[in-house]
């Protein structure tokens, strides 16, 4: 809401710039910004049209003589359809600046001299949608004679200075000028003064033209109306109109404007009805499901049984506190009116307004709360204003549909505790002084303070609220900087997070860039890598099909990244992600959240450069990274790679499950060519590892051993073997037969093709023998080596070469 400084001055003295005020209000209470309307405007004065002649060369232009307070009238050519003699109008003189950089200069219009422009309100900065409808297609005409030559800015509020406050939901008390005056007053230590509205007692009668009933009393704690009889609806006065259009409210007529004016003044929405269009009754109740409400412009809303409506007989007039249809609108023909001020349940208003997409100024106030203590006063004020502009013959007493007496809130606090929570040491007097600035009354009894909060601050309820009030008015800038002074604590990560960090560091060291992807995937993506065969977890109300399911693997995200990068010619990619996947066991609502670490590599792993030959990623490169990762888990486990063709989107001949002590902890392999094609990516190798599973393994306890003092002896073994035999089978068998001094077996050659028997391959191994305690003899080694060879021949039918 925008707080007009001129309006504010009715309540408190103001002697600061809006910039200073906005800054101070932001620091002590509510985020605010300065607003200065019409800063650019110049040379705009009242003109009085003394005569009009038609333009000799134009059908629609008129040549006007205008008194602008100078010794002679000036001639202005005007094309507005509503221009007429004896009007008081806005004249932009030669040299005038208008909004959007428009400048007025004297000149000739179709040969006729024109020394300025007669303006519409929208041409001088009032938005077209907030100016009175009658001037929409023409110039603005003052209701009352004005002094020619006088500047128009104050008359029309064109250079209004305002403070735009952006409230948090708890501070709706400042959505009215009175509440804002209290808040700004407390900031500057100024108590606001307000005039109580009064009615002409002689007009007030016991009128009973209307029955008022509230059915849903729990949702409508207050519902008050007054009748005004035999009024003449007119335009509202300019002072009221200009305040309304500067609040972005279009002036309509004396009654509607008065209700809107009171909403701005008190923060209490007020509604007006044409008494003669009602069936002698007003009822507030819940709608029947399927009821229709017709709004202006042929909009029809279908209501639910949770919508609170105002009805008269069988007519539904509107949604309580939100919007009314045209049924009982007050217009220029209205003779008798009913003014209504009520309090409607915030949650109910909020839901109804949301449901029907009808949030507005009134519903916003009910949603956030209004002051139950001023409902009757606001109604009286609206009645007074209507009677002042459109005098009534008779006015009713307040007719009560429901009324709840508003009680002030009493909060008990301790000066010491309040100081403790702030980290300050203010005296009781200082604290009580701040309460007084806010208009709270307080009673001190030793350390105990009892604070009575007026109903306008319904956000206040507990001692912590007092702490906030004292602290902000005292000034947060005056708080010292301290650190919590309690017992020492030891900070750090959890052990599992430490493991994750370590694994991430390894992959960074392997040259892999870390990525972060979205957890929400498409249906296709969760189907693509459901390798653990868990249930999908779906959002109730997804925003897009792209983000509908919780991910069950990190690989679809990595594939998105590979595709995105390759499309931008970043072809050599090595990326990884450490994040959670969501695996939902059957029969469980909540998915388990499991940390994984996954990677994807495509393109060259050695670049094509002046001194290196390019090398494409292959299975064994990625396997090397994974083995390095596994070795850094410090797990006392036997890690093995077992070929698998079970995973639909993985290459059936280049994929392996990763096992730790025979339990699957992840997999590694090449993406299936079809899948790669679908995602327009080149050959890509991926892996994933379940960090929970790795974390669960026993850790190694390392006992230091000296490096061996005796030399190792190596033997080379070359064999010809059937193609289907896997390296791991050979190596396992070598270890089984190699004896206790066999230290290591390394494969140094794999060859198939030319000069090799059909369906066979040639393998070469280095066998390393070492006795840490003594020198090995050739005989010992030879004996073990023979056993190895014999077994291979026997088990795998190998040829020793």
């Amino acid at each position, binding site marked *: 809401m925008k707080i007009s400084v001129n309006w504010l001055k009715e309540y408190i003295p103001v002697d600061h710039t809006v910039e200073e005020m906005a800054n101070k209000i932001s*620091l*002590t209470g509510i*985020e605010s910004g300065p607003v200065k309307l019409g800063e650019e405007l110049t040379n705009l004065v009242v003109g009085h049209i003394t005569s009009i002649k038609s333009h000799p060369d134009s059908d629609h232009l008129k040549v006007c003589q205008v008194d602008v307070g100078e010794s002679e009238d000036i001639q202005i050519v005007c094309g507005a359809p509503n221009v007429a003699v004896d009007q008081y109008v806005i004249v932009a003189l030669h040299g005038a600046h208008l909004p959007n950089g428009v400048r007025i200069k004297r000149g000739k219009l179709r040969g006729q001299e024109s020394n300025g422009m007669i303006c519409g309100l929208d041409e001088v900065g009032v938005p077209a949608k907030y100016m009175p409808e009658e001037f929409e297609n023409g110039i603005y005409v003052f209701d009352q004679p004005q002094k020619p030559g006088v500047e128009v800015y104050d008359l029309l509020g064109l250079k209004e200075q305002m403070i735009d406050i952006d409230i*948090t*939901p708890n501070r709706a008390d400042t959505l009215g000028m009175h509440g804002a005056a209290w808040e700004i007053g407390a900031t500057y230590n100024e108590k606001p003064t307000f005039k109580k509205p009064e009615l002409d007692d002689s007009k007030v009668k016991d009128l009973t033209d209307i029955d008022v009933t509230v059915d849903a009393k729990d949702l409508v704690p207050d519902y008050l109306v007054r009748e005004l009889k035999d009024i003449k609806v007119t335009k509202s006065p300019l002072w009221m109109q200009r305040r309304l259009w500067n609040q972005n409210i279009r002036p309509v007529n004396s009654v509607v404007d008065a209700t809107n004016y009171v909403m701005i003044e008190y923060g209490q929405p007020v509604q007006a009805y044409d008494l003669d269009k009602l069936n002698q009754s007003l009822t507030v109740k819940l709608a029947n499901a399927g009821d229709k409400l017709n709004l202006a412009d042929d909009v029809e809303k279908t209501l639910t049984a949770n919508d609170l409506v105002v009805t008269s007989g069988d007519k539904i007039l509107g949604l309580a506190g939100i919007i009314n249809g045209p049924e009982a609108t007050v217009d220029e023909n209205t003779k008798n009116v009913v003014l209504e001020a009520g309090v409607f349940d915030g*949650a109910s208003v*909020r839901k109804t307004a949301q449901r029907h997409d009808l949030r507005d100024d009134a519903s916003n106030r009910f949603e956030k709360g209004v002051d139950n203590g001023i409902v009757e006063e606001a109604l009286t004020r609206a009645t007074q204003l209507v009677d002042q502009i459109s005098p009534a013959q008779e006015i009713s007493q307040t007719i009560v549909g429901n009324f709840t007496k508003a009680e002030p809130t009493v909060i008990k606090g301790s000066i010491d505790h309040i100081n*403790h*929570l*702030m*980290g*300050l040491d203010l005296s009781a007097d200082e604290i009580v002084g701040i309460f007084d600035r806010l208009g709270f009354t307080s009673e001190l009894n030793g350390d105990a303070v009892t604070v009575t909060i007026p109903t306008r601050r319904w956000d206040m309820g507990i001692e*912590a609220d007092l*702490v*906030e009030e004292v602290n*902000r008015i005292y000034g*947060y800038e005056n*708080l*010292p900087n*301290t*650190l*919590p002074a*309690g*017992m*020492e*604590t*030891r*900070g750090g*990560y959890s052990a*599992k*997070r430490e493991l994750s960090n370590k694994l*991430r560091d390894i992959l*960074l*060291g*392997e040259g892999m*860039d*870390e990525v*972060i992807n*979205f*957890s*929400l995937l498409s249906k296709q993506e969760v189907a693509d890598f459901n390798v653990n065969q868990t249930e999908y*977890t779906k*959002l*109730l*109300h997804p*925003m897009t099909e792209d*983000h509908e399911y919780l991910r069950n693997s990190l690989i679809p995200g990595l594939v998105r990244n590979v595709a*995105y*990068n390759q499309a931008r010619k*970043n072809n050599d*990619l*090595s*990326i*990884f992600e450490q994040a959670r996947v969501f695996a939902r066991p059957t029969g469980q*609502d*909540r998915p388990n*959240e499991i940390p994984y670490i996954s990677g994807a590599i495509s393109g060259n792993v050695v670049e094509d*450069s*002046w*001194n290196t030959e390019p090398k494409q990623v292959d299975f064994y490169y990625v396997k090397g990274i994974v083995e390095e990762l596994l070795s850094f888990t410090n797990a006392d486990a036997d890690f093995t790679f077992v070929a698998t063709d079970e995973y639909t989107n993985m290459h059936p001949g280049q994929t392996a499950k990763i096992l730790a002590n025979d339990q699957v902890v992840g997999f590694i392999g090449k993406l299936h060519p079809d899948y790669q094609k679908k995602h327009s990516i080149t050959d890509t190798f991926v892996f994933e590892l379940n960090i929970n599973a790795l974390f669960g393994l026993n850790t190694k306890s390392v006992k230091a051993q000296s490096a061996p003092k005796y030399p190792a002896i190596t033997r080379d073994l070359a064999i010809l073997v059937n193609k289907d035999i896997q390296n791991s089978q050979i190596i396992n068998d070598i270890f089984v037969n190699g004896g206790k001094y066999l230290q290591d077996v390394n494969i140094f050659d794999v060859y198939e093709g030319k000069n090799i028997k059909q369906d066979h391959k040639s393998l070469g191994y280095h066998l390393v023998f070492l006795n840490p305690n003594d020198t090995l003899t050739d005989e010992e080694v030879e004996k073990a080596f023979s056993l190895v060879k014999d077994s291979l021949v026997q088990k795998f039918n190998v040829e020793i070469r």
Partner: protein
Amino acid sequence: MSLNDTLKNLRENGIDEAKRAQRLQELNDLRVNLLGKKGPITKALRGMKDVPAEQRPEIGTLANNVKKDIQAAIEEKMSELNQKLVAKKLEEETIDVTLPATKQTQGTKHILNQTIEDIEQFFIGLGYEVAGGYEVEEDHYNFERLNIPKDHPARDMQDTFYLSDELLMRTQTSAQEGRDMEAHDFTKGPLKMISPGVVYRRDDDDATHSHQFHQIEGLVVDKNISMADLKGTLDALCRHVFGPDREIRFRPSYFPFTEPSVEVDVSCFNCGGEGCRICKYTGWIEVLGAGLTHPNVLKMSGIDPNEYSGMAFGLGPERFAMLKYGINDIRDFYLNDVRFLEQFKGVN
């Protein structure tokens, strides 16, 4: 010719030959030829028997000197030739050091994780534990326990992805507060915790919104925690992250789970407070929200608000990183273009 003269001739010729030598081999040959057992000096000394006995010592000394001098000349020349050889070799081995390196690549940690870990390290140093929490959370912890009952208007401020009536994608890492407080044994000292992680909102993705982003929640509960403690802690954090000359200020705000609640601004690190485009000409940049834990939140976790108080703060790593590195589009964090990622190599 006297023996004396013969030796002197040999010396002259020997030194001369050594000086003329071009290759090491010539010098080696020269040494063997002149100084060896079959060399002319040895041969000449056989004539010693014809020399009168009293002259023999003199001749002997001369012969030794001749040998020494030739030897010295050979060695000098050898060293000279050696130096030339080394110099030649070094010259041949000279390379163009401006040619590009053989690539040794370390990967780049994602800039969000760098930002998060920088903040984690700061708080670990102050004795905070780093907690994880659940990304799929109960309505109970995400809202109810934070003083946000079902009809609370604050639920509008954050549209939520629900999985069922009771389960949702957490909208804030504050959801961890209730769990942290329940689990903590206050007889062992204060609760000091930060909870970094991913949160989710039903927002359309655009330059400033993302349906998934990160938060770091901080929570301290102890006897006598005050607003001044909160201000001192966040002041130190902002200096750590944005530079030692930064200041912070508190502005009143509203969160259902803190009272008082504040927004925290840091003085603009771009203009130093004079006003620029980044700080929207205010000299200040809003960086996080904070406050004292609402007494209801403490009570719901079984903590007596008359005995204990708490402070809580929540900050956005995306916002921190965007401010610090001038990133204009939040979507860049999640597109993972490696050219974007790699520019942050080693910044933290």
